[in-house]
């Protein structure tokens, strides 16, 4: 012990101070600063999303309309890629060298240490080839996904398609969707998205410092299983749909067939159509652009988005509403001199000169004169001003589901257009207008805009003698077969059942009795009630329309066929409707073969709209540019479709 004994305390003091500094620092990084825990989890945890199988869609007889098909996303972790045979990889997945470099660059920008998608949706055949060589491609992995597949390539507008979510979808979903997820973008894929998508599962995969998968975090305590989406049973009848699409090939227009007793849609054709399989897979972006630019507008869902003046078939509604209003009855008869004179030198002509015509005959023969008189009585002789009487009539039309969307389970349904009296008042500059001002409404021409779905629904109402169910495309959801309440509600059309009899008789005679407008399409052993229509088209050839329901008693099908630019309704629309009705009721077609062939083979596409064939097979051109899907989507939203001229005019007002 020497004189510097006290210095031991200084030394011990230094030891203690340093230990305290260490403890304080530990306290800070272990207790106060939580960011290290977060970083540790980021280091080690990879939330692996387990994608649920999307719900399968069946037709009403249990046949598959949409199913899932496995595809394979190729992922890459750039840091792990070493000495690979780039040329071989490019060859297998069918890209060029520049494409490889671009993709690697993109992946590296995303993260050099984490896997990102190198190429999406490789088909099973490519995958099989790739699998053989995958061990040579260090840093590349394959992840299973499923995509939609459509075994019969039918009903694209009904079924819709799915696409990767965009930023807006993600934002709107409050974070439910994440980049790379798929979402129903149209059709029932979109309207039943919540049910079809199922529930994603998450696996908390742990990885080591080299990003190699290790165990599952906490033995899967925080993992969730994927729950498959609900299956949907569609109301469509696949066989009927296939036939309807075949019949509508090379024509523009719509077919809607409804089961009157339930409102279930049996067939729903929008032509021009396309193969729904085009909207799947690696060529999707290209195909999508081609479809968008196709002048026949295959992406346009005509049955619910196009509205036309209905033409003569509207006489059915006119006859019913007029009876209900009491302006005519079953015995009311007008004299037809071959036209209705509604002003000096102004004649609305018939195609015939029938003389005395009663209600039944007026429908059977489609007499314009009769409805000229009826409309005149409706507007001019009810002891009130023209506009007032018109509005009263208009209201009875809306009860038939006209003028507003019917509420089908498809997105973007349009409501058509029935002008209000104010619209005419504004147009004529005064309230003192009468039936003669817009007499063409009486026969379904003029400003009326009605969607083919509404037309078919009118037929369903007539078939049911006074009521309808909202037309819909899905009859059962999931295993329990739930039906949405809104589609079980019986809606009355505001016209008493008794008034339907003469109209139905007229429609029956139109088909089944000599002198009818559609006798050429009558079906043996089935009393089909029908009504032809020819819609004047200021832009070109007239549109052909045919409505029908059958059988007369206890009807099973109500149908509207609308063929654009096809001329007279009985020629093209009638046979199509007839064949579909017979097919549905008897599963045969008795119409002579030559008529069938004529329909299958005719090309009624407007000359200007030469349909470009869209190829499905991988096109020889290598598509390496970044996909234009998003911009195309934006364009599609902007694109506007007009068929009805009155709508154009309304916009200009």
């Amino acid at each position, binding site marked *: 012990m020497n004189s*510097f004994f006290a210095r031991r305390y*200084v030394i011990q003091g230094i030891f203690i101070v340093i230990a305290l500094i260490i403890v304080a620092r530990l306290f800070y990084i*272990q207790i106060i600063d939580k960011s290290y825990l977060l970083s*540790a989890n980021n*280091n080690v945890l990879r939330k692996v999303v387990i994608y649920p199988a999307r719900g399968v869609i069946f037709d009403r007889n249990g046949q598959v309309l949409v199913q899932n098909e496995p595809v394979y996303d190729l992922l890459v972790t750039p840091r792990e890629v070493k000495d690979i045979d780039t040329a071989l990889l490019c060859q297998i997945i069918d890209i060029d060298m520049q494409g490889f470099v671009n993709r690697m660059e993109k992946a590296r920008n995303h993260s050099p240490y984490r896997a990102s998608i190198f190429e999406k949706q490789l088909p099973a055949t490519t995958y099989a080839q790739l699998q053989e060589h995958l061990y040579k491609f260090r840093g590349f992995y394959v992840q299973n996904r499923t995509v939609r597949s459509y075994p019969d390539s039918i009903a694209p507008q009904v079924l819709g398609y799915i696409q990767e979510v965009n930023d807006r979808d993600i934002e709107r979903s409050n974070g439910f969707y994440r980049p790379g997820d798929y979402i129903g973008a149209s059709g029932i894929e979109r309207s039943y998205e919540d049910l079809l998508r199922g529930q994603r599962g998450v696996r908390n995969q*742990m990885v080591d410092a080299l990003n190699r998968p290790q*165990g599952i975090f906490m033995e899967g305590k925080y993992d969730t299983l994927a729950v498959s989406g609900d299956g949907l049973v569609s109301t469509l009848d696949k066989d009927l749909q296939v036939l309807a699409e075949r019949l509508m090939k090379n024509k523009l227009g719509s077919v809607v067939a409804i089961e009157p007793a339930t409102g279930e849609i049996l067939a729903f054709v929008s032509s021009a159509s396309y193969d729904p399989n085009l909207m799947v897979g690696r060529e999707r972006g290209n195909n999508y652009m081609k479809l968008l630019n196709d002048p026949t507008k295959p992406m346009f869902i005509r049955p619910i988005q196009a509205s036309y003046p209905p033409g003569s078939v509207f006489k059915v509604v006119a006859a019913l509403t007029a009876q209900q209003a009491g302006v005519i009855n079953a015995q009311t008869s007008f004299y037809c001199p071959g036209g209705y004179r509604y002003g000096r030198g102004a004649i609305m002509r018939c195609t015939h000169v029938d003389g005395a015509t009663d209600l039944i005959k007026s429908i059977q023969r489609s007499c314009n004169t009769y409805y000229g008189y009826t409309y005149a009585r409706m507007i001019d002789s009810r002891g009130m001003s023209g506009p007032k009487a018109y509005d009263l009539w208009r209201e009875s039309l809306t009860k038939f589901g006209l003028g507003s969307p019917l509420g089908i389970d498809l997105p973007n349904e349009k409501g058509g257009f029935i002008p209000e009296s104010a619209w005419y008042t504004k147009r004529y500059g005064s309230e003192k207008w009468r039936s003669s001002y817009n007499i063409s409404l009486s026969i379904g021409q003029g400003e009326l805009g009605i969607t083919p779905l509404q037309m078919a629904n009118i037929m369903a109402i007539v078939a049911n003698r006074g009521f309808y169910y909202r037309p819909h495309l899905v009859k059962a959801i999931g295993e329990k077969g739930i039906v949405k309440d809104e589609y079980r509600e019986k809606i009355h059309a505001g016209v008493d059942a008794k008034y339907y009899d003469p109209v139905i008789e007229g429609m029956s005679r139109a088909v089944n009795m000599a002198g009818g407008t559609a006798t050429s399409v009558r079906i043996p052993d089935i009393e089909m009630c029908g009504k032809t229509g020819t819609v004047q088209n200021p832009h070109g050839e007239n549109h052909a329309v045919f409505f029908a329901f059958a059988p007369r008693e206890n009807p099973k099908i109500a149908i509207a066929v609308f063929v654009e630019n096809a001329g007279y309704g009985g020629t093209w629309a009638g046979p199509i409707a007839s064949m579909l009705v017979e097919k549905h009721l008897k599963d045969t077609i008795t119409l002579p073969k030559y008529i069938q062939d004529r329909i299958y083979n005719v090309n009624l596409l407007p000359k200007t709209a030469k349909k470009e064939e869209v190829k499905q097979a991988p096109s020889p051109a290598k598509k390496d540019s970044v996909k234009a899907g998003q911009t195309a989507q934006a364009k599609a939203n902007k694109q506007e479709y007009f068929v009805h001229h009155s709508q154009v005019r309304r916009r200009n007002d």
Partner: protein
Amino acid sequence: MTNLNEKSFFGRIDWLTILLWFILCVIGLFNIHAAVYDPENPGLFNLATNYGKQSIYIFTAILIAFSILIIDAKFFISVSPIIYVVVIILLIIVLIVGRNVGGNQAWIPLGSFRLQPSEFGKLATCLLLASYLSTQTNKSPNMKTLLIGAAIVLLPVALVMLQPDTGSALAFFALIFVFYREGYVGNTFLLLSGLAILLFVLALLVPNEWILIAVLFVICGLFAYSLRRKRKYLISIGLLFLASSLYILCVDFAYENILQSHQRNRIDIILGKMDDPRGQGYNLNQSKIAIGSGQLWGKGYLQGTQTKYNFVPEQSTDFIFCTIGEEWGFVGSILLVGVYLFLLLRIVHIAERQRTAFARIYAYGVASILFFHFFINIGMTIGIVPVIGIPLPFISYGGSSLWSFTILLFILLRFDSSRKGLNG
């Protein structure tokens, strides 16, 4: 003199220190196991793993410890020059035939083992220093003794620097405590050392050294004003100011021109001047993440994900504290710090109860070396000192390190056990 009575001999051993030593070894063993644990392939005890090898090292260390306890204490005094010479020769040999591991030529391959002479350098230096200084205690501390003592320390430092193993070399400087305790350097020196470290950090942190010098000038001016009556202090303050200014300029110069770039980077990262968690700062960042994610109670034995999945490099050697921090949390960490502190204070306590100057000086040498390793190693893993690759005594994996520290400690215990019968 020795072994007069077995019972009383063992009774005189400081069992408390042995207990602390053993606790640290066991903590080390468990955490090495955790660090090398492969969850895919847990297996049983395997001699091929670091864990298995460390068990052997510990077993061997116990044998060595026992051997030391039965050797005559005087033996160590007499052989200290020989040991020193042997180690110096080994340090020279390693420069010629050594194996280069991680940029340092520090290892001599001996069959399946590798010998790291610099670890034994500390032991040899402590022994010779104690031996030399203890012969000088009859005189009052003088410059000549200080210089010879310093030379004993600086010779191995120079050789280790040549490897170059800066970390191990720095550890020798901890022996400043010995010189301090023996009176060769004063409180002023200690304060000046502290000031030098502070100025070093400031010089690197403050972007323009002239600003720092200006601030320093103002502070010195204030002191000078308050002490204006005492001329003696005024001169000291003036000198201090000039020396500090010169030092600051030198630090900047040395930093830019003498330090190697990786050393500069390590310092920059500690000072927060550089943020590169994927490159230069990867080790430190991952180390802090591992320790920080341990939270209060830790993730549990073998549950440390950062450790298990190899995010932390060198985790069974230099970064072993990460495993402790992650799996045992704050509680486990402070217990470990507590055990170390207790050991260090115990050694100082033992030092002061020695009758011979040799034993006392040697004890302070042991305390200094252990303290330096403890502080620098843990400090680097939690980001308060730059990353310097030195082991955590008794805990880090490695035979050379474990044996040399064990020998270091048990020679002290041997002296302590015979303190009553030894005159020096």
